[in-house]
């Protein structure tokens, strides 16, 4: 689904990603863990197309398309979704209006017809159930007055509505209590299929108890330095990152 080769990216002249390599095939869930400052959020931002970051080297192939050549909105229309760590509020714009606009823009891009109001509302009811989101919230303004848990669930609700090929979950578990965590994870699991892929960026192993990854990667100092099965996450939970740092310094 997505192949990242030797990605270098900087912000304000400071290099954060220093030759990152990553391959996530369709049908899989890959977790990315790593200490603070390693570049996890930077990776998410760069893939989404945040202009603050400058890509200085490398390539990203997204299902056959050259991702780095595409604008942020085109990347989304090609099927990339980022669940934000801190979802922003948009007062005055209802969730339904927002999503319907997004859905129709994506459809237009793909040469499909706009979705009818009836079909859209049916879709809203169906998908909001996946994350146990009260359908009444759908008519509220985007994230306005939402609790932390509701915001994160709203991200997954949007993901369910937009049906992306690749979903990047940027610390979706931060700020969630146990129950909210379970609901969000459930939602993500329900959306998994052979046709899509998910990158889960997280600090803590806990989320990975619910969203079981196929591969766990460690991002350290701007590069993927270690990859392994889900047990790697447990090892990190036990030992921390020092042993990784030591390993890297030894090299």
């Amino acid at each position, binding site marked *: 689904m997505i192949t990242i080769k030797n990605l270098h990216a900087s912000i304000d002249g400071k290099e954060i990603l220093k030759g990152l390599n990553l391959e996530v095939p369709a049908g899989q869930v890959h977790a990315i863990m790593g200490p603070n400052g390693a570049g996890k959020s930077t990776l998410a931002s760069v893939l989404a197309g945040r202009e603050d970051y400058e890509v200085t080297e490398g390539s990203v192939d997204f299902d056959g398309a050259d991702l780095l050549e595409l604008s942020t*909105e085109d990347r989304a229309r090609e099927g990339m979704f980022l669940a934000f760590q801190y979802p922003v509020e*948009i*007062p005055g714009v209802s969730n339904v209006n927002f999503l319907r606009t997004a859905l129709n823009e994506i459809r237009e891009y793909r040469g499909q017809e706009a979705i009818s109001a009836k079909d859209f509302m049916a879709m809203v009811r169906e998908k909001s159930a996946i994350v146990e989101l009260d359908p009444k919230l759908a008519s509220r303004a985007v994230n306005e007055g939402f609790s932390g848990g509701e915001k994160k669930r709203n991200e997954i609700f949007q993901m369910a509505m937009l049906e992306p090929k690749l979903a990047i979950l940027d610390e979706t578990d931060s700020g969630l209590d146990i129950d909210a965590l379970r609901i969000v994870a459930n939602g993500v699991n329900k959306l998994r299929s052979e046709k899509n892929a998910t990158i889960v960026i997280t600090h803590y192993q806990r989320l990975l108890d619910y969203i079981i990854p196929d591969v766990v990667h460690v991002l350290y100092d701007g590069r993927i330095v270690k990859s392994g099965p889900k047990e790697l996450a447990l090892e990190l939970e036990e030992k921390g990152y020092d042993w990784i740092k030591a390993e890297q310094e030894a090299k």
Partner: protein
Amino acid sequence: MGYTENELAKDLENQEYKFGFVTNIESDKAPKGLNEGIIRFISAKKEEPEWMLDFRLKAFALWKEMTEPEWAHVHYEKPDFQDITYYSAPKQTKKYESWDDVDPEMKETMAKLGISMEEQQRLTGVAVDFVMDSVSVATSFKSKLAELGIIFCSFSEAVKEHPELVRKYMGSVVPMTDNFYAALNSAVFTDGSFCYIPKGVRCPMELSTYFRINEGGTGQFERTLVVADQGAYVSYLEGCTAPQRDENQLHAAVVELIALDDAEIKYSTVQNWYPGDKEGKGGIYNFVTKRGLCERNAKIAWTQVETGSAVTWKYPSCVLKGDNSIGEFYSVAVTNNYQQADTGTKMIHLGKNTKSTIISKGISAGKSQNSYRGLVQINKSADNARNFSQCDSLLMTDECGAHTFPYIECKNSSAKIEHEATTSKIGEDQIFYCLQRGISEEKAISLIVNGYCKEVLNQLPMEFAVEAQKLLAISLEGSVG
């Protein structure tokens, strides 16, 4: 060329101007400048009765003694009152020779607003004749109104056909002494609308200036009078979203609304006069005096979406004279590039148990300056008055300005007055969030701005609201900084 000012002066001296004037004048335009002669010229051209001319002359005498106000938070080159043509013939003059000559940007804007090709040509003056359809539509529309006793015609026509009504109400809400521009308008007003709804009648359709068979010419010094008799209701729409160009820079209109006991007037305006170019050169000065008077149990609601003009200076106001009367003001004022706006409202509470609501949404972009100026005045006699004011400012760039000048004058301790204000900007993060969901930047700004203005846009009649939304989006294209 044609009739000169000297010849005109001679005619006046001869006191034969009234008739000789009309038949001798061949020129379609008055010479530039403002003096008693020009005013008589205007009045005679319009075939006005004596009392109307007297009104004008009285106003002109007053105006000469007044000084131009300078307190607004706007800077502009003062108009040279002697360098203006105060009268142009009513027949619509062609502004362009052919469709190809029309400004491509204007064509693009009209297309974006969803205006049909026919309508585009009519608006740009390329097609001088009305399309047959609009004439017949307007005719059947008028006969329907006539059945109900509703009068809706041009102000000039009303002066001739319904003098009693005009004389009774004209100047009763905005007297010629009110301010510099009202005095000027009272002296040289060109035309406008007159509307009278009889007792107990609910006007069945929205009255729009589009349907008044407009004799053309520009709304330079428009004069409008709307009277809703006891228990009557009318919703009136002024303006249109299509960009209007005009070689006349100064627009000083006067609008008076009178709602008698138990009556209701809804007055909506969408204004998109030429705002000047991206460097801030040119553009229309829109200095308007709008005021409504409410008698007992009456209600007047002003709704406006202002996106045009280089300088906007207006305060649609309500005088809540009657007990239990209600005044409402909903406004979206957009300024971009170098535009300036100083706009707001005055709610004057005189009667008992009166209520007023003010919702003002300002949007500043580019290097523009947008000011809200509002007055809530509660008189000693105004027991139990209620007011709610909300003025919000949205800043789109780091070079624009938003200012608020709220005034509260309360002389009655039983009043309840609430005021809220917010200032915000469209965050880059909000735009990025939309982009990441596949929404283009243009659409994102449109969504966010429309969400911000929702409360006001909801007050507009539906077709107007749809046009206004598109207009907002166009006015703010490429403006997030």
